[in-house]
């Protein structure tokens, strides 16, 4: 997945317009990144990539770049 595709994937999860999501977008700017958003994110990581997020990973996520970093760490993001 390219970075652009990843950003689109993240935008879809949080039901945001694609142009509102950049690597620098903080969690606080994404309205749907609440407790349900976290569950949705976990489920999509699991179903789309087979990545099971730990509670620690979830708690450490402060913005979009942290999501991208997990994809990168798991070899799912091509630069």
């Amino acid at each position: 997945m390219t970075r652009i595709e990843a950003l689109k994937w993240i935008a879809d999860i949080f039901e945001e317009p694609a142009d509102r999501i950049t690597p620098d977008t903080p969690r606080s700017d994404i309205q749907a990144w609440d407790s349900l958003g976290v569950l949705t994110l976990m489920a999509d990581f699991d179903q789309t990539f087979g990545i099971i997020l730990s509670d620690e990973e979830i708690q450490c996520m402060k913005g979009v770049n942290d999501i991208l970093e997990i994809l990168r760490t798991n070899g799912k993001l091509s630069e």
Partner: protein
Amino acid sequence: MRFILIDEILEVNPGKHIRAIKHVAPDEDYFRDHFPGFPVVPGVLLTEMMAQTAGKCLEMEDAARGRSMLGRINSANFRTWVRPGELATIVAEIRTSRPRFAIAHCYVEVNGQEVASADLLFTFIPATQFAHDFRDEVVERYLAARTLQRGPNPASMLGTQPS
């Protein structure tokens, strides 16, 4: 009004698959308004039937995880009407079951025809949040019937995997 939308569990493989039924009584109160002269089961109730069915499958897999709560309707389709007096068969297939969430694909059939389907996301609420004497009467009826049919089987108790 009770909010138990499943009459009977027909079969269950905890955490994997469940099939249940609901007899839609002709005198359900909501038929007075939904709709006058054209009574059909509301789609939200069909969705709730699917959620309750999948939820029981999840709770029978791991009761310690807590009670399942519908968190999100990822998709839902309603293809045809369900009428008063019809027998609905509700099926849920658990696609993902994790400690914090689960995903199920569910559908409702009437006379062998799929009338509704939904993909549902569940989360879990600790059982301590609920009435301490809560008992799931639908699950208990299923377990009791199974015990009568097969004799006592500890593995069939709520919260444990089947043998």
